[in-house]
């Protein structure tokens, strides 16, 4: 910076620090996507924003991690109970249903609705980003944040059990469990991210988008329960419950049947292929809505 400065009318000073031409390499679409993913994650978690934006993410993360911490504590304090003091991983996924739903209702509206309301969507499209790369970056950011809730506590439990000596026996078995947990977490996060982004694509009001996401997840569970449990319709109506569907998918990935300690659901008797298709259908429905809405969204 040199000392060449002049005052302006509103009290600001214009400093001529010199302008440097940039001759180096540019990072292109890859750099644009990387920056957008990171900026979106920061925005969702309230990083670099006033404290009030950090409150909700912190609360949900604490709620999600609490069961894993409690069970680790129980396992550590009551080691003489043996395996009775341990919780199975699909149950831990089950404990994260409520925080995952809360996060799904908050994450994508923050990631998508804000950009449309601020006009940032159009500004981003004036850069190397295209609609496809913009949506890819947003999906990656939403998925990453959902993984914190869906996978974080379970991995914490795995590491904790391992440290206290109650983890999977042997390195091969440990990695087998690790990859199964990661796959299950990815499925839950991907489906929840797709539903969350779909809800955020249909309205420009963040609150409405959050309500829409909760309605789909919570409403699906209620309708499914009424049809299967109360009206005694086919268990196939259990697929109307997105959380139940991905939960069952996670159970199958983990290889924990109800008989082996896994949780029972309306879909427990369904084929694994049908369960996987159900989860894929929810993902495809969410992604389809997002694609349709953003293909038609005008950038000016």
């Amino acid at each position, binding site marked *: 910076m040199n000392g060449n400065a002049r005052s302006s009318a509103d009290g600001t000073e214009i400093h001529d620090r010199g302008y440097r031409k940039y001759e180096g390499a540019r990072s292109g679409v890859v750099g644009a996507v990387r*920056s957008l993913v990171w900026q979106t994650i920061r925005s969702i978690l309230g990083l670099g924003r006033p404290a009030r934006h950090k409150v909700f993410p912190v609360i949900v993360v604490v709620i999600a991690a609490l069961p894993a911490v409690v069970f680790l504590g129980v396992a550590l304090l009551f080691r003489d109970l043996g395996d009775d003091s341990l919780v199975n991983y699909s149950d831990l996924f089950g404990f994260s249903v409520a925080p995952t739903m809360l996060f799904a209702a908050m994450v994508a509206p923050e990631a998508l609705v804000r950009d449309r309301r601020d006009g940032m969507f159009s500004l981003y*499209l004036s850069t190397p980003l295209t609609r496809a790369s913009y949506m890819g970056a947003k999906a990656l950011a939403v998925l990453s944040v959902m993984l914190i809730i869906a996978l974080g506590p379970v991995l914490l439990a795995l590491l904790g059990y391992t440290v206290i000596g109650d983890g999977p026996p042997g390195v091969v078995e440990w990695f087998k469990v690790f990859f199964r947990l990661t796959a299950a977490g990815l499925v839950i996060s991907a489906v929840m991210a797709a539903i969350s982004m779909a809800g955020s694509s249909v309205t420009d009001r963040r609150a409405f988008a959050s309500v829409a996401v909760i309605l789909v997840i919570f409403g699906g569970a209620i309708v499914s329960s009424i049809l299967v449990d109360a009206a005694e319709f086919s268990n196939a109506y259990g697929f109307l419950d997105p959380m139940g569907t991905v939960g069952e998918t996670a159970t199958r990935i983990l290889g924990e049947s109800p008989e082996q300690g896994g949780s029972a659901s309306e879909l427990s008797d369904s084929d694994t292929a049908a369960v996987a298709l159900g989860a894929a259908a929810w993902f495809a429905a969410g992604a389809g809505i997002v694609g349709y809405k953003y293909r038609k969204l005008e950038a000016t």
Partner: protein
Amino acid sequence: MSIITTSGLTMQFGTQRALDSLNVAVQSGVTGLVGANGAGKTTLMSLVLGLRVPTAGQTRVLGLDPRARGAELRAQIGYGPERNVLPQDTPASDFVKHMAEVRGMPRNEARGRASDALWLVGLGEERARSLGTMSTGQRQRVKLAQAIASDPALLLLDEPTDGLDPVQRDEMLSLIRQVSREYGIDVLLSSHLLEEVERICDHIVALDAGRLVAQGRLEDLVGDEQGVAVELAETADQPHAFNDVVSRLSESGLEVRHGEVGSRMEVIGPDADLIADLVRDAVADANARVIRIERRRRRLEDLFSAGTP
């Protein structure tokens, strides 16, 4: 060399034709894209950026086709939109750095350039402030900073003085001029305020209802013409004064142009000083009152009233 060329560029929205067979060649320097609201300025900018598919015609920007090589092209363009697009909670430096990264700057380079750009536009001390707490003038400066931070070859600025008071407008125009002259960045600046375009632009592209009205170097489109322009005061006690002055000047062999009604006339001739003397004498003889006598001048407004491409 033309940095933007269009041929037969047409954009139709339903029954409304926003651009109609537009053939323009934007040269290096600062080019003013002028026209009333709805003339097609923003539509042309979105076509230049490749954000829309034209109904017909071709566009080349910096030698590239925006439709075929849009991402590559947009990495070389800094865009300052008309709308208020800034995220409220984000500090100015974070926003400008992020936009520089999105336009292809490596992270460390983006940080330094964001800081430099904010100092350049006069917001160095305010760079940590949230955008939502800034005044309209400061936010317009941030929009300029984010557009230049990535060292673009071409700046597209859509109504960059919108919402600014006259002093802030002067400062913004000076900054834009500085960016072009000192840093060698070509600028396409859209505005509906003709006098600000006249002040800083080298070239003009004038649109009216989607059609090209005029294009070329500013000095060829505006400037002094032969003769003088005269404006007389309308007074109740001298109702024929205007016609008397016109008659006397015509009898002197001068060409006088005036409308059906009004108090302005143009007196055409090669020697403006001599004509001014003759006008003074005619005004005195007719006992008329003068508001102003000035050299005839082509103005940007005249392009729109003439309507000739």
